[in-house]
């Protein structure tokens, strides 16, 4: 009997493509953000409000993933930025190859900001690096404040927690401070913004975070080139 060391990641092929994407994003100065949440927490709604708030001349694009339908892409196309739907046909997450394939006919040098809306799922997307600069997790107030403790991986790996649907707080027994505390238990110091993608409340906090991220990324790109 012989034991041979393997010592490599199981998802090494995905990670290789993701690293390649990340290098290309950096080369062309594209900030890529990967939005992750349970089905229906409000990823598309948040993007709708965001695209609405961004100036028309901003070089922004969206890739949106779902198992079936073009619904989310159709909702987002109204804002006149380039939008493409990725239908996975059953797969519960996006992987780096899907991103690579769907970016093929866009010129990265024409973009500054790329949003990726992942398939609604709080577990699987956390394992697949898409070459993004940051993951963002969206949690809505109807889901329970214990979710960060039940699904620690995604809260641990995300830079920002967007607590969405705060307009519903008067109607649900959701302890928003406990939710924030739980998120910071899993991910000490995690940044949190509280928004309603319906009423627009708190949205400026999210836009402020986004603009700071864009600025930081820009100086990173400049030092890299």
């Amino acid at each position: 009997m012989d034991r041979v060391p393997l010592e490599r990641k199981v998802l090494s092929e995905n990670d290789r493509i993701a690293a390649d994407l990340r290098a290309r994003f950096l080369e062309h100065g594209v900030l890529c953000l990967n939005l992750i949440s349970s089905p229906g927490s409000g990823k598309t709604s948040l993007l709708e409000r965001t695209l609405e708030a961004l100036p028309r001349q901003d070089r922004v694009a969206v890739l949106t993933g779902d198992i079936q339908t073009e619904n989310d892409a159709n909702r987002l196309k109204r804002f006149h930025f380039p939008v493409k739907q990725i239908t996975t046909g059953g797969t519960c997450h996006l992987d780096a190859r899907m991103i690579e394939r769907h970016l093929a006919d866009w010129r990265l040098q024409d973009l500054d900001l790329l949003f990726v809306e992942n398939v609604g799922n709080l577990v699987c997307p956390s394992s697949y690096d898409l070459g993004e600069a940051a993951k963002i997790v969206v949690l809505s107030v109807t889901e329970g404040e214990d979710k960060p403790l039940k699904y620690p991986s995604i809260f641990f790996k995300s830079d920002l927690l967007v607590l969405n649907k705060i307009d519903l707080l008067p109607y649900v027994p959701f302890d928003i401070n406990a939710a924030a505390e739980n998120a910071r238990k899993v991910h000490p110091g995690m940044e949190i913004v509280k928004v309603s993608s319906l009423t627009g409340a708190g949205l400026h906090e999210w836009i402020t975070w986004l603009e700071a991220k864009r600025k930081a990324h820009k100086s990173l790109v400049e030092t890299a080139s």
Partner: protein
Amino acid sequence: MHEMGIASSVLEAVKTEMQRYPESYPCKVGLRIGEMSAFDPDALRFCFEAMIRDTDWAALELAIEFCPRRHHCHACDHEFIVRDYDFRCPQCANFAINCVSGDQLELAYLEVEEYGPGTVGAKSTQ
């Protein structure tokens, strides 16, 4: 649920590695799964066993090492296992947020055995 995809990636890796050992068969593959990796060891084992059933590798064993979350303390250079999200260093009580282990999904090793004359399913060697 993506444990099926992971199980098939593991088998793919074993297949590739086994090309280097044409006179042998794989008996055990070692995997490391971190506490924060979002993978369920039991679900993975279930998928893995379903995939090898009724194949030449039906006896291939999956050995999973579960890796707890470990943090490193900058203040005193101590490394410790995090329990109940308590990030205070047990040695110096400093708040240590530098995670050094716990989100891995890695292939660690493969154990191979040479086909003997009496091995079931042995390939004929000229």
